[in-house]
């Protein structure tokens, strides 16, 4: 697993207080990990801070799963 994926997973575990085993790439923040809309905003802000990237509102809306977040951040970091 990439360093980014590891870090994303850690942030999700920390923020949502879920078990690490549940944070699979396919896991949906809202449907599988019990996040509400405010949690997703807080997660996006935590990602922004941790990876020093800016995630605009329209991109943030499309981040529904753990994989979505990893992919988006990896793309930003590669650019």
């Amino acid at each position, binding site marked *: 697993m990439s360093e980014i994926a590891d870090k994303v997973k850690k942030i999700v575990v920390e923020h949502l207080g879920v078990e690490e085993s549940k944070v699979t790439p396919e896991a949906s923040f809202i449907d599988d990990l019990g996040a509400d809309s*405010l949690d997703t905003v807080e997660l996006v802000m935590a990602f922004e801070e941790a990876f020093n990237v800016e995630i605009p509102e329209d991109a943030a809306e499309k981040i529904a799963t753990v994989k979505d977040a990893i992919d988006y951040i990896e793309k930003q970091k590669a650019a």
Partner: protein
Amino acid sequence: MFRLDGKTALVTGASGGIGRAIAAVLHAQGATVVLSGTREAVLQEQVAELGGERAFYVTANLSDAAEADALVSKAEDVSGAPLDILINNAGLTRDTLALRMKDQDWDQVLNVDLSSPFRLCRAALKGMLRRRAGRIVNIASVVGTTGNAGQANYSAAKAGMVGMSKSLAQEAGSRGVTVNVVAPGFIVTPMTDVLPESQKEKLTSAIPLGRLGKPEDVASAVLYLCSEEAGWVTGATLHVNGGMAMV
């Protein structure tokens, strides 16, 4: 009842009449208070008056967006504790009839009285939501509800503050953070002392409780909304106006 031991509160506009009273009451109930204002000498004196313990100050010019953005973390730095309570009390007036009101009078009042409280709320909410606890009390004014000739800017800002607070209350409710408004009526402060006696008499005659308000009247209402006991009150506006406007 209404103890705030172990809580840390930031009071903006703390060197003014109402802010001073709010800070004193919160402090007396056990809170650590951080006073913010523009006049350093006055703030220093106030910290000393509070006995120096559990009292800090930060100077900030809230017409500067960057200073407003940074104030919450500065307050946490000086007090060494995360912020539990935010009191947006700072405000200014630039009264004149609309026909003579300059863009600058409008912009300045909206900026300091509405935009800057928003910035402070945004900064404070970040930590409060994470910690699943917090109290925000925004100090508006009766004129935000009733309007007042000569105060199109100020009344717009204060009405805006009420709408903003209701929205924030909805956003933050699921995390146990409350956002409420205290709307004072006519309070005797250095800011209102300059009015001629005849006008004060006229104002008093319109108040069912028969006197002008004291800063402490406002501070008590703020204390209630900051307390654990007010844990099921959010998005509310508590009018403290002697009955002048029953809304």
